[in-house]
Every structure is written in C-alpha cells, then in structure tokens.
C-alpha cells in the first residue's frame, strides 16, 4: 500500500467542521461513600478544522480518547466544554429538533462490523433505516431501488438484500456498514477504526472503497486508527493524540518526513519498513513505561513521564500547540532542539 490518497481536499473553501477547545470529561464516582467524583479527562482541549473532501487521521494508543473524540463530534457523547461548529454553526448542546436534520450529513462507521448491524434485521432494512428516518416521503419501491443501487456501489450483490448480517463475512459486513452510512450521501463520516478488525487484504479493499466514495461524493472523513501505514495511505492530515491532548497536527508528508514531537517520532519509528536492510539500521525510539491513568494525568506536559527528553520545565508548563511551519503544529517546549 504505497499509493497515497489521490483525492485533493478543497483547502481554499471554508472548513465544514471546526472544533475548538473540545473537552469531554467523565465523572467517575469516588471511592468510598462520600468521596467526591473524580474527573476522567478523555478529551482535553482539541482544536482542528476539516475541509470538504479531506481525510483527517486521528492516531494514538488505546485509551487516548480517539473514539470519544469521534463520538463527541457527532454529539453521541455530550462534550463537557468547547465548540463543534458544523458549517459555521455550533452544534454542542443543540436540541434534538435542530440536531435531527444535521444527522443526515454526519455518519459513523464502526470497528466491529458484525456488532454494528442489528442481527434481527435484514441488510435491506439496515441500509434503508437512515432513508426511512430522514426521507419518510419516499415510497417502498423507491427506497428498495436506492438500497440496491448503494449495495452495488459498495460491492455487494443486490440480490442479498433479504439476507441477515450473520450470513456475511467481516469484510462484507463492513461494506453493509458503509452502505448504511452512505445512503443519505452525507458530508462527513467518522470512521472509528473501520479496518482494524479485518484482515490485511480486506483492509485494502475497504480503504480503497472509502477513497472512491470520497472522490465521488466529496466526502470528508475523520479516520480513527492506530495503524500508521493505513493512515499514511488514506489521510491528508494527521492528528496525534496522547491522553486526550493533541501532540502534533500536520500534513501527512510533513509528519512522516519530519515528525517534530518525540511521541510522534516514537510512533513513526515503530512502523516496520518492508526492507530488512533499512529496518535493521534505522534508529528506533522505544518508549518505556505504560500510559499513565487518565484519572491522574501528569502535570505540565502529559507525555513527560515517558518522554526520553523530559526536563524540569515539562512538569511545570503545559506546552501549547504552535506552528512550526504553515502546515505543521506541535505541542512540545523543545521541538526545536530534539
């Protein structure tokens, strides 16, 4: 998978999605009867813009808040603070009546393809559900025709319309999930690790399908993953999350060629290169220790407990996301020296 995403985002137009200082905190009941609740900061101040036709990759370890971020953008989890502006309009805390028409433009694809399909419904019913919800004026025949068209588009045989999810393989189930997300021709799809449950050859098919659909419908994607080679293949820009904080946000080419944050460096150096000569001789940054508990994140820079370059200043001051070039931002006090 060396070919990269050929689709070009329309950077000159205004962003369709602007996220400003988004925070999602969960209250965890304290230990003991009268202990106060503790705050779990799953997402702690995230900023980014997304342009039409663009794919933003969100990478990070398990538990760094990737999925929570995706769901908070779609208002499936209520954000604690911050702004999510969809086409210029803040949708945080929007009442159901205002949110409902926006839902047709915002869709999600899940990690576990089978679990994301209701086992008691035929796939025709599953794919038709968004249509039935948002376009009740359509007749039965019209809905069925559209479902079949979409099934053919995502590479499923339209004759399978009356089958049930358990009769399909994982890759086919993921195609059903994509068909359900695409049937209303949305503007943004949050892909929550859409390929990590599939095997490698199927991964490539699904990723290519997403790219084709992106080109055809001018889709924006938020692609959550922990697989850096897939992210490199599909994403235009990449955001690196650590404990709910953005470590680095940059163009794909910049981030892979010249990662600035020590965490990004470590992640990228861990991607295997299919050439034993280079693989053997490359410099690898190995992180020690485990992810700290998000209930008590380190002071200052959240990454300092595992950072090989940590200094005193890192414990005192939280680094801000700064531009190092026009298309690369990094949150590290010492990004110039390391």
């Amino acid at each position, binding site marked *: 998978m060396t070919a990269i995403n050929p689709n070009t985002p329309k950077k000159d137009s205004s962003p369709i999605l602007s996220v400003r200082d988004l925070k999602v905190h969960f209250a965890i009941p304290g230990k003991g009867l009268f202990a106060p609740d503790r705050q779990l900061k799953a997402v702690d101040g995230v900023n980014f813009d997304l342009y039409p036709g663009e794919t933003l990759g969100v990478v990070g370890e398990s538990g760094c808040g990737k999925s929570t971020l995706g769901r908070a953008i779609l208002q499936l989890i209520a954000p604690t603070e911050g702004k999510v502006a969809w086409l210029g309009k803040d949708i945080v805390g929007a009442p159901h009546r205002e949110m409902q028409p926006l839902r047709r433009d915002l869709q*999600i694809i899940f990690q576990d393809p089978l679990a*994301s399909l209701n086992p008691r419904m*035929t796939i025709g019913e599953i794919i038709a559900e968004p249509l039935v919800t948002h376009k009740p004026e359509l007749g039965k025949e019209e809905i069925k025709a559209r479902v079949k068209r979409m099934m053919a588009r995502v590479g499923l045989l339209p004759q399978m*319309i009356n089958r049930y999810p358990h009769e399909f393989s994982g890759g086919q189930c993921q195609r059903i*999930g994509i068909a359900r997300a695409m049937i209303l021709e949305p503007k943004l799809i949050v892909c929550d690790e859409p390929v990590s449950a599939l095997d490698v050859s199927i991964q490539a098919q699904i990723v290519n399908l997403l790219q084709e659909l992106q080109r055809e419908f001018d889709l924006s994607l938020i692609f959550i993953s922990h697989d850096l080679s897939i992210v490199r293949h599909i994403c235009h820009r990449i955001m690196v999350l650590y404990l709910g904080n953005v470590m680095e946000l940059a163009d794909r080419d910049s981030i892979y060629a010249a990662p600035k944050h020590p965490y990004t460096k470590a992640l990228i150096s861990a991607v295997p290169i299919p050439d034993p000569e280079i693989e053997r001789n490359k410099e690898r940054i190995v992180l020690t220790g485990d992810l700290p508990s998000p209930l008590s994140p380190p002071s200052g820079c959240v990454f300092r407990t595992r950072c090989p370059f940590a200094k005193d200043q890192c414990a005192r001051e939280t680094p801000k996301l700064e531009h190092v070039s026009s298309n690369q931002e990094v949150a590290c006090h010492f990004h110039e020296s390391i």
Partner: protein
Amino acid sequence: MMNKSEKTAMLEAAGAPDEIEGRSLWRDARIRLFRNKAAVGSMIVLGIITLLAIFAPLLSPYEYDQIDWGYIQEGPNWENGHIFGTDGNGRDLFIRVLYGARVSLAVGLLATAVSLAIGVTYGAVAGYFGGRIDNIMMRFVDILYSLPFMFFVIMLMVVFGRNIFLIFVALGAVEWLTMARIVRGQTLSLRRREFIEAAHATGVSNFKIIFRHIIPNVLGPVIVYMTLTIPQVILTESFLSFLGLGVQEPLTSWGVLISEGAKVIEASTWMLIYPAVFLALTLFCFNFIGDGLRDALDPKDR
C-alpha cells in the same frame, strides 16, 4: 482496481436476477426447535388439550353444571357416558375437567400476556434510558416485589368480590415484575452495542430504537421465560382455587377439581386422578417447550 461500470456489470452477470431469501435467526431457531423431540411431542399434547378445551361442549352429552341424579359420585363408566365418572353432585367429571382446562389455560395465557406487555415495555424503557429514570422505575418494582402476594390477592377479593378477571389482573400484576427485571438486564447490555449507536447517529427516535432494535433482540430470553411463566401462573391459580379464592361455582378450574378430589381421595380416587393428570401433563409440556426454546434460541448470536 476495477472501475465502476466493470464492477456493476460483473455483479449483474454473477447472480440470478431474483432476490435470495435470507435465513433469519428466528427461522434458525424454529428449525432447531422442531428437531427437539420432547418439545415437538409437548406441542402436540398441548395442542390436543387445547382443542379438547375449545370443543368441550361437543364432546360430551352432558353439561358442565348438569346434575345426573342417577349417578352421584360414581366411578368411570363407558356405558352411561360418564367416562371420567361423576362428582359428589352427580356432574360429569369429563366435561368438568375440560371446562377446568378452559379456565386454567385462559388464566395462564392471559396473565402471561398481561405480564409480557407491561414487563417488556417497562423493562426496556428503564434499561434503555438508564440513570435516574432506571433507578426510580426499578425501585418501584422492588416495592411491588416486597408486597406479600397472598395478602394482595385476598385484599383484592375482599374489595372487589370474587371475579375471574380479578385473578388475571392479580397474577399479571405480580408476574410482570420478574419480566421487567429480565428485560431491563438484557437492555442494559444491548444499549451500548454499536448498532444502537449507529441508530442514534442516524437520528432514529428513542421510541423506534426501543421497538425496532431493542425489543426484537431481547425476545429470546423473554419467550423462554414466558413458557415457564404460563405453568407457574396455572399452578398459582390452582393454588388460589384450592384455597377457595379462585373461580366461582359452578364454573371450575383444575385447582378446584383437585381440591374437591383431594377431600374424597379414599372414597373416589378418580375425582383426584383425572384433573391431576391433566394439570401435570400441561405443566410438563410447557416446561419441555420452554427447555426446547431455550436450547433453540441460544443466547449467543451466531
């Protein structure tokens, strides 16, 4: 990589034009259920008992409240048509057992239907919304649970008088509590599943999520519990009738007949044996069907 038109052409060429019928989980379960001999046998026996109960008036020359002065408390006799014998008032036992079947089965089915309707909706709503709503709704269930059942029934009888509909209400009002708890537990584990989240993301209303996505998926354990509730209700009704709180004479139920038979067990055994055999047979059948359904609707989704 194929382009789009090639792909569609291939898809069109690959399959027959008509749609393929899928095999739903319900159909799989039905096939597995019909492979279970005990369950199928039970369904046949239960079917026969139900048919006998429905067509009872056609099957005997006697009425259920008709007194045959010539044969008072006589044993089974094929020649005069009293094939199960007669009771202490000279009424034909065969027709009375069948009328008892009507009452017992009706109580069982209706009370279970009541408990199903209330329990499933209540449990699904409590489990789906969770949090404070769930807490309030389930504490209410706990309060009702703590009411002593017999006390509740006796109070109802005292206030409203003896009435067969009261028995339906009383039994249904008690049985839905367990149903609600089962459904709530299942719903709690379902509502975090991705397909529910997908429905949320699409903007499907809560009402539709509950009825289209949650209830069909909790129906498996509910059906199993239902087949085990029916015999329990029949048994409870028999117990109430045995205590004299059940149906009113001359109408009868299996509980009443067994109660009467038990009093004269030494003099006329047939008065106990026939209704008891019918009751036991019915209970066995429901339990076998329940077992068969539980195996067929294996909770693990395949």
